[in-house]
């Protein structure tokens, strides 16, 4: 990590990668039927939504700290 000085605050964005773990591994957050979305119970809608949220967060981490990097 020779370029650590140059990255400074940017590297903290990597912590976003932890968010999906907390969101989906703690089942009580989403273990309910209501509210439904388009007839889909919350349990399923929540996890479907987190697929996209997780991808979005990874994308942000990529853009901020890793784009085109060969590290």
């Amino acid at each position: 990590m020779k370029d650590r000085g140059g990255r400074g605050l940017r590297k903290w964005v990597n912590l976003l990668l932890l968010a999906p773990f907390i969101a989906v591994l703690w089942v009580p957050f989403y273990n309910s039927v209501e509210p439904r979305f388009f007839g889909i119970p919350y349990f399923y809608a929540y996890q479907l939504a987190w697929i996209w949220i997780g991808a979005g967060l990874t994308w942000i981490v990529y853009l901020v700290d890793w784009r085109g990097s060969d590290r």
Partner: protein
Amino acid sequence: MSSFIDPVATGVFITLFFLISSLGFVASRWKRADLGHIEEWGLGGRRFGPLLVWFLLGGDLYTAYTFVALPALMYAAGGSGFFAVPYSIIVFPIVFAVFPKVWGVCAKHGYVTAADMVAGLYRNRTLALMIALTGIVATMPYLSLQLVGLEAIFAGLGLHASITIFGSEMELPLFVAFLVMAGFTYNSGLRAPAMIAIVKDILIYTTLIAAILIVPAKLGGYGAVFDAVPPEKLLIPDAEPGSLGPQFAYATLALGGALGLFLYPHALTGLLSASSRDAIRRNAVFMPIYAFALALLLLLGFMALAAGVKDMPQYADGFARFGNIYAVPALFKHLFPSWFVGVAFAAIAIGALVPGAIMSIAAANLFTRNVYRAYIRPECSEAHETQVAKIFSLLVKAGALGFVTFFPETSVVQLQLIGGIWMCQTLPAVLMGLYVRWLDSRALLTGWIAGMGAGTLMAGATGFKDSVYTLTIPGLEIPCYSAVSALVLNIMVTLALSLIIRLRTGAAPSSPPAPVRPALQD
């Protein structure tokens, strides 16, 4: 016998199947290079860009067995079968954070397998051999399951003809599919499944989009689909007092699956074929599209429930023979026109060939690099090495075919279950050393033995039927995926022993990773 053949569906199926798999033979000319080199045959020359790796991994991880077995699990068990979704959600941040580093070490030193990396980092041949054998043994039942998936599709089409080989009945369609897969793998190596994966995905996405639009419309909307599920199966049940409960099991199944997935040789082979670290990171961003497809696929299990296919006499035969994995083929037959059934079944069948080919290549790479060259013929030439890999890839597939022919399907599923538990036990040796410098190879080996032993015992205690084993400490019951609890033990043993060894022998004589060619003699 209700298994009459639908000529339209079967015609479309056979045409697509042979057209697409013939691409596998053409693939040897693509990104042309000397296929007599194992990095070319077995890793596609590490030249696949982000888009191609995306297709390859998608084809690799979401297998034919996934397509039939996971919806079947939802069909039978309800919401607790949905753990494959959180599993997919957390696996990609892991890939993003960890695997570019693995790729870097492997590309720099010419490692083709995880065991190559272990041999190079720790200079311990026994540890590397154990990692290689774990990979080979865990891959075999997974490969067999692809053939089980194919069988379910052939049964759905009503294709049934048997030949007698060595005094045992073998399904002819399965044998033909095996020959096709063996042929293009031998000929083109990893280029074949990569090229096929692209076309296969187009078919899969077409099928899925059609299914998620058409099926709920025919069944009265998503609300109606979920209303057909018994309410107690919709969610994960709450814990009994004194137990962490089924929700803990659900979370550990997701975590253990995610930790183990990219330790599997076929998954790692897919990643190592990437052309750069950047290609891997970009993949981790876009792979969740597959996760979404997978989630929709799981819901097909509920749709099969809502459609009530199990009670229809025309499918009784299939359910009797294959059990719940027949649910999705039956749903498609029930709701789609014949020609589209042909397309959908071809997509799933091709979906068996891609991972099947990659699994056999990955197992062959392991055998050749870490058993044959490490122990049998260390001085062999690169061309000879590649020839051994090609032949071993044939043997692996023949073994898988023999397995599904001679053993009941339940034993294949049980072996796959225990394979997943075993695969996780290679995590400390393969990944922890990249971050923790003071690990000792003897400690890693002991940890591996502890993890393998504990994992096997826990699976055995459930009769190899359940991957969740309930640990009991005074006052608390902990139902936990055995792969995770065994891994915790494995890591604790590894860390404690490493610490003891380091304290007794002083600082680590840390040597740089060895390149793969000269380092094989101790």
